């Protein structure tokens, strides 16, 4: 099978039949190249999708206060519902089974100034676990911690864009920023995959915000994250119980739709996952389709090649070639060509994908890639089918009587 003579014979045949070699090699290389690029683009689409929708943690419930629309237990309608610090501890105690973390969020606009630079930013007064639900990534320093909340410290964590605007090239760590009328110490800088908008935020302890606002204990939003193991059904049950509990505590008519709003990200998550699954399905479908097209292309070329060589095979047989040696010769040659060109196409496709990176971001294709195992597997698949596609006509040609093959013009 691997004698030097056979290789020499094959190299000579390949060298002297350039067009034929080029045609079959090109078909294989193009087939695998297109497969890899399309598959990679599919993955790029999935990346964009993930970036758009999966930036925040998905196991969260968001509680907002609203206005009641029905009178209840002696309270009039149109009452504004606000949360308080006690709600945090109550939820923590009553729903320990579901709960992963809980954090308040109070959003206020503020003018921030450092030396001569100033601008308007949103500030969020939060607890330590807010970092988890927003998937905030620390670049420098630390996030708001429990001690900050307990002592209502004047520490802040600023976004990457805030640091860039206010501090230019200076290191913001440990510097003081004026927010309204008080000075806050920067203890950390963060980035967020959600983009620039999310990086124009300033985080502070929620207790500090409450002290600034006449020492109240009001909270505008509560964000609760649940343990992912409880699943979608568990999340819905949690939401239902939480709504009931809060309505009861705030004395809202159980049939009143407007007192409290709860946004359940789990619901959204399920939709997103379904969308992602459909995307995956399309990617797979396109991939399989391209592969099949490639296989058909190779089969055609192989049938053509063997047909073209019928007479040559007849001559070889008249000179003493056995059917086996004829089949082996054709297979050896075709596998050699498909392997070389298959891997050329594969590497070409991978290089193209690597070089694209973020360039096709506008077309929702972000960092397209293909797993090397998928690439190698599909290349082997193409080579295998190329060999099978070559074997069938080769076997037929080898079994034709030489006298018939010689008559072929």
């Amino acid at each position, binding site marked *: 099978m691997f004698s030097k003579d056979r290789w020499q014979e094959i190299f000579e045949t390949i060298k002297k039949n350039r067009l034929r070699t080029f045609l079959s090699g090109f078909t294989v290389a193009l087939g695998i190249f297109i497969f890899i690029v399309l598959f990679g683009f599919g993955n790029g689409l999935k990346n964009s999708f993930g970036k758009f929708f999966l930036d925040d943690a998905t196991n969260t419930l968001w509680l907002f206060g609203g206005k009641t629309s029905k009178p209840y237990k002696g309270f009039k309608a149109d009452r504004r519902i606000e949360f308080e610090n006690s709600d945090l501890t109550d939820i923590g105690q009553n729903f320990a089974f579901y709960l992963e973390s809980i954090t308040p969020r109070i959003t206020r606009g503020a003018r921030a100034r450092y030396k001569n630079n100033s601008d308007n930013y949103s500030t969020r007064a939060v607890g330590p676990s807010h970092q988890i639900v927003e998937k905030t990534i620390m670049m420098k320093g630390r996030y708001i911690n429990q001690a900050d909340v307990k002592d209502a410290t004047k520490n802040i964590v600023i976004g990457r864009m805030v640091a860039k605007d206010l501090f230019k090239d200076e290191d913001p760590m440990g510097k003081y920023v004026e927010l309204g009328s008080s000075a806050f110490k920067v203890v950390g800088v963060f980035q967020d995959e959600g983009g620039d908008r999310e990086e124009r935020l300033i985080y502070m302890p929620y207790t500090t915000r409450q002290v600034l606002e006449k020492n109240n204990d009001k909270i505008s939003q509560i964000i609760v994250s649940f343990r992912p193991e409880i699943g979608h059904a568990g999340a819905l049950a949690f939401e239902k119980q939480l709504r009931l509990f809060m309505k009861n505590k705030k004395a809202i008519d159980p049939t009143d739709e407007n007192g409290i709003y709860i946004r359940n990200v789990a619901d959204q998550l399920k939709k997103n996952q379904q969308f992602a699954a459909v995307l995956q399905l399309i990617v797979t479908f396109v991939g399989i389709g391209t592969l099949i097209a490639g296989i058909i292309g190779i089969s055609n070329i192989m049938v053509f090649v063997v047909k073209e060589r019928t007479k040559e095979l007849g001559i070889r047989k008249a000179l*003493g070639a056995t059917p086996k040696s004829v089949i082996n010769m054709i297979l050896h040659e075709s596998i050699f060509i498909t392997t070389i060109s298959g891997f050329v196409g594969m590497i070409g496709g991978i290089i193209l994908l690597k070089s694209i990176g973020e360039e096709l971001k506008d077309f929702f294709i972000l960092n397209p890639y293909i797993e090397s195992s998928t690439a190698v597997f599909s290349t082997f698949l193409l080579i295998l089918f190329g060999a099978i596609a070559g074997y069938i006509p080769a076997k037929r040609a080898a079994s034709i009587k030489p006298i018939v093959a010689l008559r072929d013009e």
Partner: protein
Amino acid sequence: MIEIKNLYKSYKMGNSSLQVLKGINIEIEEGELVAIMGSSGSGKSTLLNILGMLDVADEGDYKLDNVLIEKLDETLAAKYRNKFLGFVFQSFNLINYKSALENVALPLYYQGLNRKSRQKTALEYLEKVGLANWSSHLPSELSGGQKQRVAIARALASQPKVLLADEPTGALDSVTSNEVMGLIQQINNEGKTILVVTHEIDIANMCKRIVTLRDGVILEDKKVKQVLVS
């Protein structure tokens, strides 16, 4: 060298069958130069194909160099062809992408010789047919007579027992026909057994014995006085 007894061959044509050879008996000694004559449809090419193991007879015995040729599958036929027989065809049947030298060396490849001795032997035979200087040329760069001489060199290279030539001059003009026949006579004079199928009496007369076929039987089998090509 060749012994044939009661050879029958028919081809199926739809429902009817066409009897092509109807009991051929022939014996050919070593060193003979035999012409097989006959008009088209007489069965001469079929006979040659069976002798060349390119086709199989329905009935009858075929002995080649005292080996009974029977139960031929393609693999065994290929082996015998390589060992016993050299072919020369009317349309030369050279492989068009191989040089003259590589064409001559091809049967030696299937004999399992190594590359060096293949090329050495092939060059010797090209020299024998007077084409040593053309060894690196492709068939498309050769004239018809040169192509047939390359084909003869290729047929001889495997040192066969018998050379089978099917209308070897059929595609050549009279001058080159004479050249090729002169080469065949020369090879025969060196002791090689040669069968030539032809329908031209001039060519047949250049052989030592003429077997005439008509309608699948031997009409005449006679030794003749050989016309030598000057």
